[in-house]
């Protein structure tokens, strides 16, 4: 269950990141589509945070360091939000690329979180 959730979040963020980089390369300005995709990545993080809090308060622990695991989630939280703010302030194709870089960063962080949790 948790494994599936991780897979969906990580691959989803990777796919969205690549599509957004493609949008940026096609010179598209940030739109509801690209911001919505970024929101989807953020939702993945919210879901992960809620599930992890429930699991850890139920006594579960990461194979690695549980504190490090939460540090990753919390830092990852800032990334799509920051990129989205950037996109709202500066509506150029470069912001679409920044959204893409942000989503890819979150994908990498999900992979690392998976590593910490499952060992």
């Amino acid at each position, binding site marked *: 269950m948790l494994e599936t959730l991780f897979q969906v979040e990580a691959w989803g963020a990777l796919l969205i990141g690549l599509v957004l980089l493609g949008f940026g390369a096609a010179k598209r300005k940030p739109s509801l589509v690209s911001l919505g995709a970024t929101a989807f990545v953020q939702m993945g993080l919210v879901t992960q945070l809620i599930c992890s809090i429930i699991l850890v308060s139920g006594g579960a622990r990461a194979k690695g*360091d549980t504190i490090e695991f939460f540090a990753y989630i919390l*830092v990852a939280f*800032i*990334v799509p939000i920051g990129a989205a703010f*950037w996109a709202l302030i500066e509506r150029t194709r470069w912001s679409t*690329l*920044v959204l893409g*870089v942000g989503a890819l960063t979150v994908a990498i962080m999900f992979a690392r979180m998976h590593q910490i949790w499952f060992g």
Partner: protein
Amino acid sequence: MANQKRNLGIGRLLISAYGVLALAATGRAGYELAAKFNEAPLPYSLSIFSALVYIVATVALARSKGGWRKVAYAAVIIELSGVLLIGAASVIWPGVFTYNGKLVKTVWSFFGIAYGFVPVALPILGLIWLRKSKQN
């Protein structure tokens, strides 16, 4: 003019990449400092130092005018030296970074291999961008 705008755009991308690395290094250094600093003071001090350099570099590149430009140059050069020196040291003298029989890594170990070599690529791109953006 068009060229200048283009440079500005690529600069934005570079700044965002720097921001991400600054965040990653700060998160890592903060965790190491809070959870286990005494286990391996040298590598963890290097993590904190690299995090600070990345923060300064991000801010300076984002401003990149007047005095900030010099700060940006300095930060990017310190970064490049850091990743090259610590990268080389981690290969040549792994013993220096070994604590209790375990190799402790920093952001710059093995030229930033844990971060997809981004730590060695970014300062080079940063220097190129700083040089190019001055010409306009």
